[in-house]
């Protein structure tokens, strides 16, 4: 393979390579460490955390769709304290960046979690704003610019200098409004896209396959939506972007980078192939080499729109 510099910079954090694993697809890393050394990854977005442990939703929590899957796990997790005590020390053993992903019911909860995680020592905090906002009557933070800004500001205030990356929901009319709101409130980076709401019905039983009726769509089916949204957001804000949505090979990652992403995350592809992140990384390096680039980071924003 030609000598291509794989390292990238995401909000001041240097990743050994641009391939991160997406939150929710990789647990806390222990399972996939049985397949390869986690130091091979650019970074790990850990399973989404809440202030208190959550059991998640009843099963079935997954349904297969054309080139995609729907999930409704519902943020099952042991809570931020258990993560810090039981999981973070394990993750810290590897030469990779650890990105904690948090969801709160109130801005205060985001603040508390940021305090705890920054004190415990993570490389970045990914703020998931696509979960229900109890205070605002069930609306998602991710669909209202002023709420997105409030959460971002609170997270930033309590993160004690640890970079805050806001994860955007694609379930909005104009994603750039939310992106600008997060930027204005001090976000250090943006990650997108989260899953797209979808539904599958079993025709013979007339029941939705998911016990929660609807869920979040991911997998190759969403890649073009992710590319479009990363491209739109990249033009609207100056923040670095972690692009994700349906990446399963090097060319998919290259599309997101050309659209404006500084790094990419691999999620659903892991279920088909546990080695997918490493193959995406090698595929990206090969593309960069073939195009005569000295660094993969040169791909970022390189799209030549008509």
């Amino acid at each position, binding site marked *: 393979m030609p000598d291509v510099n794989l390292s990238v910079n995401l909000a001041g954090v240097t990743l050994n390579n641009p391939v991160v694993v997406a939150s929710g697809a990789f*647990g806390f890393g222990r*399972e996939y460490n049985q397949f390869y050394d986690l130091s091979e990854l650019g970074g790990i977005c850990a399973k989404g955390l809440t202030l208190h442990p959550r059991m998640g939703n009843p099963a079935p929590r997954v349904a*297969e769709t054309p080139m995609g899957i729907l999930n409704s*796990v519902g943020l099952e997790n042991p809570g931020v304290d258990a993560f810090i005590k039981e999981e973070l020390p394990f993750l810290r053993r590897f030469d990779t960046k650890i990105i904690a992903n948090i969801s709160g019911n109130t801005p205060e909860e985001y603040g508390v979690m940021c305090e705890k995680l920054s004190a415990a020592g993570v490389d970045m905090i990914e703020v998931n704003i696509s979960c229900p906002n109890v205070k605002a009557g069930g609306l998602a933070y991710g669909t209202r610019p002023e709420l997105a800004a409030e959460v971002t500001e609170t997270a930033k205030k309590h993160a004690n200098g640890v970079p805050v990356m806001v994860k955007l929901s694609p379930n909005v009319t104009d994603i750039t409004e939310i992106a600008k709101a997060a930027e204005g409130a001090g976000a250090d980076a943006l990650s997108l896209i989260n899953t797209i709401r979808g539904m599958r019905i079993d025709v013979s039983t007339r029941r939705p396959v998911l016990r929660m009726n609807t869920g979040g769509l991911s997998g*190759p089916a969403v890649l073009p939506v992710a590319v479009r949204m990363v491209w739109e957001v990249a033009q609207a804000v100056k923040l670095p972007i972690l692009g994700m949505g349906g990446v399963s090979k090097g060319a998919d990652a290259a599309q997101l980078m050309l659209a404006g992403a500084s790094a990419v995350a691999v999620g659903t592809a892991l279920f088909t*192939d546990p080695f997918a992140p490493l193959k995406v990384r090698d595929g990206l390096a090969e593309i960069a080499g073939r195009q005569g680039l000295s660094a993969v980071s040169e791909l970022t924003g390189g799209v030549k729109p008509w």
Partner: protein
Amino acid sequence: MKVEQQCKIIARERLTPDTVSMTLAVGDMVSSAITNTGRPIHPGQFIHIKCGEGLLLRRPISIQSWLGTRMGGTITVVFEAKGEGTRWLAQRQVGDTLDVLGPLGNGFRTTSGPYLLVGGGVGVPPLHACACYTGCASTAILGFRSKDRAILLDRFDEDCVDVQVATDDGSLGYHGFVDALVRQELEKKRHYQGVLACGPKPMLKRVAEVAAEFGVPCQVSMEERMGCGVGACLVCAVTMKDGTVKHVCKDGPVFDAEEVDWDA
């Protein structure tokens, strides 16, 4: 380290119009189980098979039998072609290659027999491995929808002390569900180390109730729509009696029946 392996199909047999038995050459997968988990491959574990290019989720198929590396290194699975993935799988021929992860999960925990093995439909195959694993001292009670769907009866006859069959329509053996036969058997004999059950959830629930009534420990192999197969994605959730959530792929598929919240 765990691997993803390309495995060639070396034998294939249609047991009923919908049920297929396939034997795969798995290299050192059988012996690697012990290096990866500290314990040898055992009944109730599964392999996670990729079913074509268009389907993103692998299909978990429980292992019916295996031969160690020195004996040739094979795993045999028996499955029903009922969805898109398993229909694709059923069409594969001898010589074709499958992408396999495994062996995965925790199987039945046994000592040498006698156990009461209770299977329903496509839940029957992994119990054949239990029959062999428990020193051919066990009794099997097997349920099927009808006579033409009965599978592996000759194999159980070879490897069990006694085999009783129930069918939903009465076309073979007892007319009714397996739990009635389980009750009869446990009333007659008190020497079973435990009940090992695999089948649809309503069947497992009833068998667990009967076993509990007689004070016999019962292990059940649970099924749930699965994602990664290794415990990372958390989709295959089962609620436990103590209110916690466990996952079929990593904590199971075999659980102690008394742990499971059957009404969740």
